[in-house]
């Protein structure tokens, strides 16, 4: 075998966002050795960008809140496709995880009596999101990072994993390259935790960074793991639409939580026009009541701008399609209007939404305290991902665990805002805990030299494409356009079939994606290698979307606009077949526990 630098750990965590850091803290605190790998520098993962807050039923602002309401909200938001056990654990454990962050140094906004303040967010019945202004993710990642560096975790920054190493059916390590010089590294591990985040780079308009190429999902898939719910991709209703270069950058839901309203070109608050049945009793039907709600009146019902993200995104698409959009193809989001109600509205907005204020001021030359923003849907989050056991977070592959956005189950067909940050720490901890247990109970496996040599050759191939070489950036950007068009917010059978046909062509093109000069910090090379993962997750999404012949949550089918009772009982599961082709299976959702069913009923 060729010689590669080798590192050996009991537990190897891939990904240093909230989920990966929390898992690594748990593992390193439990007496095992732990390595942590990330593609960027430490502290730059997606988690740092999260804005609005972290959902946990602390009951600090409204003491009627409880884990059972949080559970019921999460299930309703996910349209009951959720893994109900995960939703239960998440609702029960998130308050402890939030308080734990405080014990590690996080500083969050306060209530008048000095407790952690909570804000309103779409789909949450009570004010539930612990937050710091609109940069909660920064507070979370920095707290975990600064706590973690004193725990003996060995961090490998700017290292990208390209394949999981297997012994029989079990994961025993990972193969990676470091960005600085492109050298290959073999990691040996008794247990591996995937915490690599999402797949947003598969689409043209996205709030996601270069990192989100679906690596974790694709690597797990190649290792034999099941992926579940891959048709469910959240298009966040409010991304920037102008100027073109910032299209897709997120505008936090916190703007609506603080009273921001959506209007069309006629100045109409169009969200009042279509309130889904499941939410009529909890949604206000007039502006005055909506305003009372955001200012904390407990007897008021929420404004329709705070309906779930899937619904708000669809309403925006409808307005634009029917010719009532804003000049640049979005609609208006107005927070400045609160000056009708509040004396120092300008100061209030700057205090509550400081980074939104700066983002628009500096990138769009617009003052949100004075003018409405133009916004439209942007690819934001993948509900689907690696299928895991609710208690342990182990995937269907022994030794492989997953947590955070790359894992699936908690959010079902649609994620509620704020439920991701809490997901990261609840299930990050669990993944770390059970990976540690697994590592203690199992000995180190054997690395397969053939596998290592093969993958090393594959990774070097872009430097040797001959005359058919193609620019990887062009392939990636063409793919994003195709996915946005055919597998985007609204889907239909023809287009999904076309997409699958196109994806075959892209697979062929990816074989020619080339790199030149050398392997030192070479983004062209990195992009060429990432294509394979992007294509795997794109295909999983398209196939799952084709199979689900109904509209539910984030999945909207023009040719099947309604919900379907039969479909409601099934999750789509994707795995790699023995012939190497992608297989898809429909698995029934396990019947919900009686007491949980009751909670859902009571909260209807």
């Amino acid at each position, binding site marked *: 075998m060729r010689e590669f630098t080798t590192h050996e750990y009991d537990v190897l965590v891939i990904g240093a966002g909230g989920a990966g850091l929390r898992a690594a803290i748990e593992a390193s605190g439990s007496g095992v050795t732990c390595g942590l790998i990330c593609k960027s520098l430490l502290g730059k993962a997606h988690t740092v960008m999260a804005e609005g807050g972290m959902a946990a039923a602390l009951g600090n602002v409204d003491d009627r809140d409880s884990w059972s309401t949080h559970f019921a909200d999460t299930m309703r938001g996910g349209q009951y496709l959720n893994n109900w056990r995960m939703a239960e654990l998440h609702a029960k454990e998130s308050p402890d995880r939030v308080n734990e962050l405080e014990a590690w*140094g996080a*500083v969050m906004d306060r209530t008048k009596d*000095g407790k952690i303040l909570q804000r309103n967010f779409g789909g949450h019945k009570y004010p539930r999101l612990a937050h710091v202004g609109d940069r909660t993710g920064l507070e979370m990642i920095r707290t975990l990072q600064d706590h973690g560096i004193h725990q003996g975790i060995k961090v490998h920054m700017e290292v990208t994993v390209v394949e999981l190493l297997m012994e029989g059916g079990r994961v025993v390590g990972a193969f990676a390259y470091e960005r600085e010089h492109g050298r290959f590294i073999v990691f040996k591990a008794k247990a591996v935790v995937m915490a690599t985040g999402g797949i947003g780079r598969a689409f043209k308009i996205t709030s996601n960074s270069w990192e989100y190429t679906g690596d974790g999902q694709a690597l797990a898939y190649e290792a034999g793991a099941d992926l579940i719910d891959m048709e469910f991709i959240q298009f966040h209703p409010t991304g920037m639409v102008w*100027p*073109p270069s910032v299209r897709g*950058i997120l505008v936090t839901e916190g703007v609506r939580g603080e009273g921001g309203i959506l209007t069309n070109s006629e100045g109409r608050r169009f969200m009042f026009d279509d309130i889904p049945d499941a939410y009529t009793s909890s949604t206000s039907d007039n502006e005055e009541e909506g305003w009372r709600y955001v200012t904390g009146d407990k007897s008021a019902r929420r404004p329709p701008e705070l309906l779930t993200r899937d619904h708000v995104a669809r309403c925006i698409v409808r307005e634009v399609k029917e010719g009532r959009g804003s000049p640049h193809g979005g609609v208006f989001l107005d927070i400045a209007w609160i000056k009708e109600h509040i004396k120092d509205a300008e100061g209030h907005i700057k205090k509550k939404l400081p980074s939104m204020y700066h983002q628009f001021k500096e990138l769009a030359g617009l003052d949100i305290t004075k003018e409405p923003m133009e916004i439209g849907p942007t690819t934001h989050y993948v509900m689907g991902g690696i299928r895991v056991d609710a208690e342990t977070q182990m995937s269907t592959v022994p030794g492989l665990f997953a947590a955070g956005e790359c894992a699936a189950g908690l959010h079902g067909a649609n994620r509620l805002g704020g439920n991701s940050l809490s997901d990261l720490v609840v299930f990050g901890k669990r993944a770390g805990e059970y990976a540690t247990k697994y590592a203690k109970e199992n000995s180190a496996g054997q690395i397969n030299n053939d596998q290592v040599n093969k993958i090393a050759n594959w990774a070097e191939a872009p430097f040797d494409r001959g005359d058919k070489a193609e*620019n990887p950036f062009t392939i990636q950007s063409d793919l994003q356009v195709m996915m946005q068009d055919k597998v985007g917010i609204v889907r239909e059978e023809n287009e999904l079939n076309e997409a699958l046909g196109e994806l075959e062509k892209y697979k062929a093109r990816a074989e020619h994606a080339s790199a030149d000069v050398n392997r030192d910090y070479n983004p062209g090379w990195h992009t060429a290698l990432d294509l394979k993962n992007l294509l795997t997750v794109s295909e999983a999404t398209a196939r799952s979307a084709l199979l689900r012949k109904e509209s539910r949550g984030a999945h909207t089918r023009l040719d099947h606009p309604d919900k379907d009772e039969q479909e409601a009982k099934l999750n789509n599961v994707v795995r790699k077949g023995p012939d190497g082709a992608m297989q898809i299976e429909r698995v029934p959702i396990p019947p919900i526990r009686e007491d949980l069913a009751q909670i859902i009923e009571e909260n209807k």
Partner: protein
Amino acid sequence: MPQVTFKVWRGNKDGGQFTDYQTDVTEGMVVLDAVHQIQAESAPDLACRWNCKAGKCGSCSAEVNGMPRLMCMTRMEDLPTDQPVTIEPMQAFPLIRDLVCDVSWNFEIKTKIKKFKPRKPDAEDGTWRMVQDDVDRVQEFRKCIECFLCQNVCHVLRDHHKHETFIGPRFIAYTAALEMHPLDTEDRLADLKDDNGLGYCNITKCCTKVCPEHITLTDNAIIPLKERVVDEYYDPIKKLFRMFKPKK
């Protein structure tokens, strides 16, 4: 669509040169967009860091026309485009390649600063109480995105290379955030004075000027800490007291 010339630093630790690239500049574009366009059109191996494209992650630090900036927050409209725009890496750290430098020193420094040590919880359920004013005060420093632009311009590091003995403005502010944390009980003043080189700072305020998060590093972090060190260590009465007083 005007074509603009960019002079981009290409090279590694052994040396390099500015290379000219032309690319179209459209409405609202930022410098990072131009770099990405150049990558896609003509230099796929051009090394640069980025993540959020919205000034939130602190990855894309560089020097644009000689000014230390986040490339994703530098609008082309604010630069003169009739002359070439120069883009080069930060200067206070070793170069890896092109616009990417080795900032690992910053991560090592942080591990040497004593970690957060909270007082006992205030409530039975293990939680604490704080007032919003204290939160706001410490948040000024906690909002740092670790772009290291302040480190890059501080002459103590950039010109005098005191990386061994001076932690730089970012980590003085980090220490300040811990010291001002309403729950913290640790004492880091002695370290600041002896090992972290607080004395090297001569308050030129260059760091404050470049901070994209508008953190007033000098006035709100460095000067108050310097004053506390003076109070603690150079005030004769305090000095005497310290011999008897337990740590806070």
